[in-house]
């Protein structure tokens, strides 16, 4: 995203954004008295949802770089985090609608999307098309003034809560695989949409399988031209979070904080070997954090370099090692677990501003308050989600890192995701390995799929 050069007009614009943000806070008064929807609605109406969107659609028509100025003031004033409130909606659907939807659709959808009154999900991955997203086989067939969709989607975060979803479906099975796709938005309450929670190893169900059986979609809900779905999907994936001002992570935050907290609170469990292991993990966490910081700075200066691509790979492996450490440190205590009987997603309950990570966290540093439950807390601590798409590689999104796995099973679950992430990093090696014919196929771990073939399970939900 281009960052405008500093200049007088930008200074004026910045002043305007900041004044507008303060006016919103004045209008809200005590943030404790406003609901999330009220607070975010006020931000939207003032044009501070995405300042680069047009006036009347949550924006002010200003450079995207000024979003950070608004976010800083609003967040300090107690604004709930709109991204945590509706991650797929705010992070992905909003920018995609902005780029590809007509005025009517945007006017209808953007506000409740931003306020979280209408949650969003993303119907991309399928049982037979994960890393190789373009190999998907859900069919959309033209029927009068609309489309009829049949297929099965999987790993659909938040589908059980969503009012709307982004859908990528095949409209022409005779074209080469990337070219036969079309992008739609789907009313998740439409007849034929069936959501089945996908219970994870943690006992929770954040993901879902979604069966689409004869689902009718009006043609007005098509984004982009027929056959242009892949390009629209790329907008979605590239735009994640970019409209939201990223904030720097401080030292000793994130997952390593859990291990440090455990170390600090449980001197009775210290050993020299664990001490060196934790120092090693701390070192890795710093290298990870500083590289993320470097990527963040690079994004404001120009096209991201390779440092932007490694976050997911390193983060996933590091989180695993950190919780592995916690399990080893806790010993038998780590074998206990809070409960497997609570499959509800934490996001099902209203998430107070900025409290998402804490709430879900059940800090490992609190064993005294939760005797006998420390291990469960470790296991249930949600590793930070890595939503950054790896350059040119959609796997980062179609396979979100598993979120609450118990450390013991974490290895098994994330092995696949790790390979995807590594392939994504390989793909970012500039104009090198991947230029050659055949290399991309290999990065995705398989032979090229024949165009339009349906995988065995697709459309046949069991």
């Amino acid at each position: 995203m281009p960052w405008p050069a500093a200049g007088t007009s930008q200074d004026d614009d910045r002043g305007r954004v900041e004044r507008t943000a303060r006016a919103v806070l004045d209008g809200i008064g005590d943030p404790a008295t406003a609901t999330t929807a009220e607070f975010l609605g006020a931000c939207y109406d003032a044009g501070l949802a995405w300042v680069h969107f047009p006036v009347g659609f949550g924006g002010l028509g200003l450079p995207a770089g000024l979003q950070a100025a608004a976010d800083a003031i609003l967040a300090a004033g107690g604004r709930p985090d709109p991204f945590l409130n509706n991650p797929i909606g705010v992070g992905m659907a909003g920018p995609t609608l902005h780029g590809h939807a007509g005025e009517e659709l945007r006017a209808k959808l953007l506000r409740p999307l931003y306020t979280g009154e209408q949650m969003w999900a993303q119907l991309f991955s399928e049982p037979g098309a994960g890393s190789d997203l373009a190999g998907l086989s859900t069919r959309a067939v033209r029927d009068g003034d609309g489309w009829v969709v049949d297929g099965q989607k999987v790993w659909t975060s938040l589908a059980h809560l969503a009012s709307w979803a982004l859908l990528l479906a095949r409209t022409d099975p005779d074209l080469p695989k990337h070219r036969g796709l079309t992008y739609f938005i789907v009313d998740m309450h439409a007849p034929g949409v069936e959501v089945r929670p996908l219970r994870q190893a943690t006992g929770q169900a954040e993901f879902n399988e979604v069966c689409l059986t004869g689902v009718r979609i009006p043609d007005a809900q098509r984004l982009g031209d027929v056959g242009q779905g892949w390009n629209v999907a790329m907008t979605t994936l590239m735009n994640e979070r970019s409209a939201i001002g990223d904030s720097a992570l401080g030292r000793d935050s994130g997952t390593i904080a859990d291990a440090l907290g455990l170390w600090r609170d449980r001197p009775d469990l210290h050993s020299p070997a664990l001490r060196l292991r934790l120092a090693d993990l701390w070192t890795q966490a710093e290298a990870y954090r500083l590289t993320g910081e470097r990527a963040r700075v690079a994004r404001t200066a120009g096209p991201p370099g390779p440092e932007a691509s490694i976050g997911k790979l390193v983060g996933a492996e590091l989180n695993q090692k950190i919780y592995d450490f916690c399990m080893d440190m806790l010993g038998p205590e780590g074998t206990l677990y809070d409960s497997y009987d609570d499959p509800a997603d934490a996001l099902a309950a209203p998430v107070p501003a900025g409290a998402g990570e804490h709430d879900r966290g059940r800090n490992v540093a609190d064993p005294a308050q939760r005797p006998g439950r420390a291990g469960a807390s470790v296991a249930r601590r949600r590793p930070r989600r890595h939503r950054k798409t790896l350059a040119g590689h959609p796997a980062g999104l179609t396979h979100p890192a598993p979120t609450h796995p118990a450390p013991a099973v974490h290895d098994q679950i994330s092995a696949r995701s790790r390979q995807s992430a590594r392939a994504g990093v390989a793909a970012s090696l500039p104009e090198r390995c991947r230029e050659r014919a055949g290399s991309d196929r290999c990065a995705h771990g398989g032979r090229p799929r024949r165009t339009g073939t349906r995988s065995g399970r697709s459309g046949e939900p069991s």
Partner: protein
Amino acid sequence: MSSEFTWSAEQVELRRTVRAFAAQLSPQEEVRRLMASPLGHDPAVWSRLGEELGVLGLATDEEYDGVGDGLVSQAVVIAELGRALVCGPLLGSIILGATVLGGLNDKAARAELLPGLVAGRTSAALAAPLHRGGFDPTAVTVTATVRHSASSPGGTSSPGGTATAEHTLRGSVTHVLDGAAADLLLVAAAIGGGDGDGDGYTIGLFAVNADAAGLVRQSTPTMDLTRRQATVSFNDVPARLLAAAPQAAAVLATTAETAAVLLAAEQVGAAQYLLDLSVEYARTRLQFGRPIGSFQAVKHLCADMLVLVEQARSVAYHGARALDEGTDDPRIAASLAQSVCSKAFTQVAAMAVQVHGGIGFTWKHPAHLYLKRAYTDAALFGSADAHQERLAQLVLDEAGTS
């Protein structure tokens, strides 16, 4: 907004200039020629880096013919020198020598000794135990004795004529980097005898001229032929006191941190070269009718190398900025940089050999030069483990008790 990880136009230009200079004057054939030569470097090229390009004194004050730009700029240059394995007394004269001298309170000594080093006209070496990841006073192997001759006999007295006592050094130091050919030896020595307090001695920092009587230097064969070491013996060698306790130990501790960070930059530059070399090879080497880079095993090896190099770059420049601007605890920043970069460079070097297969293990291929540099660098100023131990003390032990 943080200025960390942003580069000025000058720094970008600096990188470009030094890379072009190295490509022209230090191509690999030249490195191979010099590593087989007695001195190990070309003094003319070294002084061109100093006087013509002015890139050896970027962290040295302008008052002493430096540029006063700071460690980030110096790190940018050192990364490029490391990338091309440019031969010269970088460790002895700049990373150690100029850093020690720049930290002295003794202005006259700085004015006398620094300009020659940053111009590349003279060279220096430091005989002090920094190999455990910090200055370790208990590992000092040289003792200094006060010579009670009232009138200064000259030769090593400071130009200001304020010397009150002459010292002689006795002892031997191994692994003195660039020590065999240095014009100036900077020596940490225990000042014993009657004026000792506490443990019976204090640490002083001394200067010894190359031609001093009683100085014996034995060049020692090294695994990394592009980097020279010597065993230096002092047999009642007259020496000039540059700093006494407690300043001497403080200067040496700071020098250890600076050296950790600047060496990290070299490690990043050299590792980046190996990554580039490996990716290029993976792209062009054909087996089974296709580039080996199209095989996931090779491609992922390259991806892992990239991750190591990028993380190393982050901590190296974080360290340089932390020392320049005080944005982080310098002890933490330095140990973080050395710990991560030593591991990264050695791993990347080993992986580069793997990507190249058999050819990567031949003498004519550059991989072994970098592999040897990697393992040598990792041992110079504290191993990755030694720095991790320091981090454990700083982050876990100290913070944990607060």
